[in-house]
Structures are given as C-alpha cells and as structure tokens.
C-alpha cells in the first residue's frame, strides 16, 4: 500500500480526479444534447492530433487542440446535405481519425519511449506541468459555465426560442462544443481516448439515473467520477492493471449496481 503515497501515484490521482470531473460535468450536456457520438469523435480527433504532433515534432497538445477545434468548427456549421446525414460525416471523421492515429503511433519510435498510449492513456506519466495545464483548463471551463450556464441550458433545450429572444444561440452552442473539444484536446495525451470519452458518458448516466434536476445531476455525475477515478487508480496499482480501463471498469460496475438497485427498488430518479 505504500506505493499509493508515491508522488507519481498522487499526480495520477490528481489528474484522474480533475480530468474525470471536468469530463463528467461536460458530459451532462453531451448526454442531454444527444451528441455522444460527436463526443467520441472529438476525442479520437484529439488522439490523432497528439500522434501527428509527435511525428511532426511540435507540442502534441497544441496539434491536438488545433485539430479538435477545427473539427468542432466543422460540426458546428449548419449541415445542409440531404444525401449524407450529419451522423455519417461524424462517423467518417471518427474512423479516419482513429485509423490514422494508430498508423502514426505505430510508425513513431518515440511513442513507446514516451509511454504514449492514446487508447488507454498514461495517467501514471502525468507530471506537475500537466497537472497545471489540467488545472487551468478546469478553472477556465468552470468560469465559462458559471457565467453562461443559463444560456447554455436554454440554447440546448430550445435553441429556436432562445434565438427568438435575442440570444445568439449559434455562438453559445459553439462555446459548448468548443469547451468539449478543447477539453478533449488538452487532456488527450494525459488521459487517452477511453478515459476522456468514458468520463463524458458513464458518470452523467449515473447522475441522470439518480436525480431529476440539473444541479443534482451535475453534482452526482462529478462525485461519481471522483469516487471511481480514485478507486480505479488504486485498483490499477494494486492489481497492476492499466489505469484508464481500471477507472472505467469501476465506472461501469458502479453504474450497473445503481441501475440494478433502481430496478429492484422500482423507483424513478429522486425528485431532487
């Protein structure tokens, strides 16, 4: 158990809690806006950005950010084609980004030496500089949503009426997409596709199962993510399992327990 007090484990715990909480919070909007597929595609584009940055020789976080923000802009633009659905375009982007990322990593001898695993992530390699970046990102997203939460909710629930009320629904929608994209871009090298995408989906599902009001759903989603991130990292260290999959298996197991208990007790989500 002494290993749990090692510096690199504490860094991993801090990163897991911070990135997991951030994704869990943003994930509530991902679930409500029904853009789950877009979420994993942005995560995959970020992974491609990291892989491309390493090959080209630029900061992988920067290349991930550039590609992800580009993808956010592409998917935010009004979609007019009647022959191919928007989902089809997102699917194409997902597949091409995933395939290219795998090839770029496979052909980069530096990737292994840097402990780079874009699928499982490498939380155990996180250092103080990474933590600082994750902290700044978390703070920036927190401030953005503290200031604009009401309008984000309005344009997500009813963009047409929001627009009719004089609210720039397109801009607010773009900011929601951008916050998800930037989060994926910045955290990808630290956490990997699986952890980022899993944290966008599983904790919000728990929140939605447990509660019926936004503030409580958001709080439950974040707490769920914190608990599972800590438990998952401890499990990964104790059993020598890969970190991100350990956290997500914990996420999934706890979600199944909650769902089963709800079915057994026959309850709807709490009124709160």
């Amino acid at each position: 158990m002494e290993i749990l007090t090692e510096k690199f484990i504490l860094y991993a715990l801090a990163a897991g809690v911070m990135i997991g909480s951030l994704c869990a919070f943003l994930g509530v909007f991902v679930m409500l806006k029904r853009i789950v597929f877009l979420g994993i595609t942005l995560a995959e584009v970020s992974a491609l950005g990291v892989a491309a940055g390493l090959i080209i020789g630029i900061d992988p976080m920067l290349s991930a950010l550039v590609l992800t923000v580009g993808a956010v802009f592409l998917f935010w633009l009004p979609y007019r084609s009647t022959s191919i659905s928007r989902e089809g375009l997102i699917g194409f982007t997902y597949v091409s980004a995933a395939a290219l990322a795998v090839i770029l990593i496979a052909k980069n001898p530096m990737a292994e030496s840097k402990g780079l695993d874009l699928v499982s992530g490498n939380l155990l390699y996180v250092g103080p500089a990474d933590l600082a970046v994750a902290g700044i990102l978390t703070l920036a997203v927190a401030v953005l949503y503290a200031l604009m939460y009401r309008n984000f909710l309005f344009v997500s629930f009813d963009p047409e009426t929001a627009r009719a009320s004089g609210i720039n629904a397109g801009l607010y929608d773009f900011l929601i997409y951008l916050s998800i994209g930037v989060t994926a871009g910045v955290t990808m090298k630290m956490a990997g596709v699986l952890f980022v995408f899993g944290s966008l989906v599983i904790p919000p599902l728990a929140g939605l199962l447990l509660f019926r009001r936004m503030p409580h759903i958001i709080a439950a989603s974040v707490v769920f993510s914190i608990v599972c991130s800590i438990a998952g990292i401890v499990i990964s260290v104790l059993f020598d399992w890969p970190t991100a999959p350990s956290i997500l298996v914990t996420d999934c197991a706890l979600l199944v327990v909650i769902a089963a208990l709800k079915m057994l007790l026959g309850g709807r989500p709490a009124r709160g």
Partner: protein
Amino acid sequence: MAGGERTGREPVIIFDGVSLGYGGAIVLGDVSYEIDRGDFLGIIGPNGSGKTTMLRAILGNLKPIDGSVRVSPGLRFGYVIQRQALDPIFPLSVGEVVEMGRYPLLGPRRRLTPRDREAVAHSLDVVGLAEMRDFAYRDLSGGQKQRALLARSLASEPDILLLDEPTNDLDVSGETRIMDLIHDIHHRENITVVIVSHLLHVVLNHVDRLLFIKDGGATLHPMEEVMSSGFLSGLYGVGISVSEVNGKRSIVMG
C-alpha cells in the same frame, strides 16, 4: 393585400414584397402585409404550406431572400414553440422552464433578481400553473406543457406573442381551454397575438384577421370577409357552410 381599412393603426411589423425560403428555394413569394399593435392575427394554411417559415421570418430567425421585414425598434417577442419540438430528456422543473423567459433580460451577473422571480410567479399564475412550479416539465400533460411554454413567453413581458400550433395533439377540451386562455391574455394583458394553426376552426372565434398561406403565397383578410360560405368554399375548393350558434362562429364542411 391590406386586411381592410382600420383606423388608429400602429403597424409594428411590416412585410414588404417578402420572399422566404431555404437554400435559395422559395417557399413563400411576394408577401406584403402588416401586423398592428393590439392585433389578434391568425396564420392559417395546410401542413407544409410555410406557416412556420412565416413565423421564423417574423421572429428574425429567417432572413428574407427578397423584400424586407421591418420590425418596430425595441419590440419584444414572446415565442411559444410547438411543444413537440422540445426534447423530454431535459430534467427541468416547470419553474426552470418559465425562468428561461427572463434569461435574455438578466444582468452581467446572470442571476435572477426579485423582479425576475415576480415576473415568473405572475406568469405561472396567469396560466394556472402556480401550484406546479416544482413539477418536472416532462411529466406534465400536453395541455399543461402548453401552459408552461405560454408562461415562459409571458415571463419575458412581451409586446407580441407568437404561438406555433399551440393546440396540436390536444383533445377538444384542452384545445378550447388553451384558446380561451390565449384570448384572455390578449385582452387582459393587452398583448398583440399572432397564432399559427393548420385548423381554421381553432382560431375562428378568437382572431380579428386571418393570413391565409397557400400555394406559395399569403393573403390577409378581416374576419367579416372570411366568414362567408363563398369565400371559404373558394379558398379550400370544397363546399363550406358558415353559421353562428350561441354567438360562436362555426363552419361545416361539405
């Protein structure tokens, strides 16, 4: 296409030779009419004729391909969207939905003031949902949802209410209660009302004028002109008789 000569008119929205459409394809062409302050205007037409397109143009959400839509400066819209367009997945209480009507008016701190809360409470009271403020919006009946959306638009203290098919999928009783409520609000709160419906009988006893949308065009008529068998039969291409029972207008097809 003036809807009859009226005295003391104060046009708040003016359509002048307007063509509307999407991606260059025109849905409605060369439309000219005016909405006056205090109007109760019905926009009627078959499904897919362009009624919602017209509404979007009034709101400024759709720019004209040709012509101009002039809106009085500072005119505040209260839009009531078709409730079926809203996703029931959103975990919002009735009160939270109605509060959205105040969001565009919030200050930089984005907090609801006592004045905002008062407007929300008043709106809920007007539509008879004061007791249901904490209920989940998605659990409401169709009629109650319609009332909540109406309350949301009233909370913004609008000059003009625009309602898109507010009685869709309601039974006769729900339909009557919603229309009576809109009628009351129009008179009691002195708000201009524009209501879109594909059913003539829904608006017949409430509106002052009707804008008929058909075959890519729109024509405005006062109710006195509309309420004749000859006019309606010619418009719809089927025999329609018009009558009045207990002071209420009614139409019979065939």
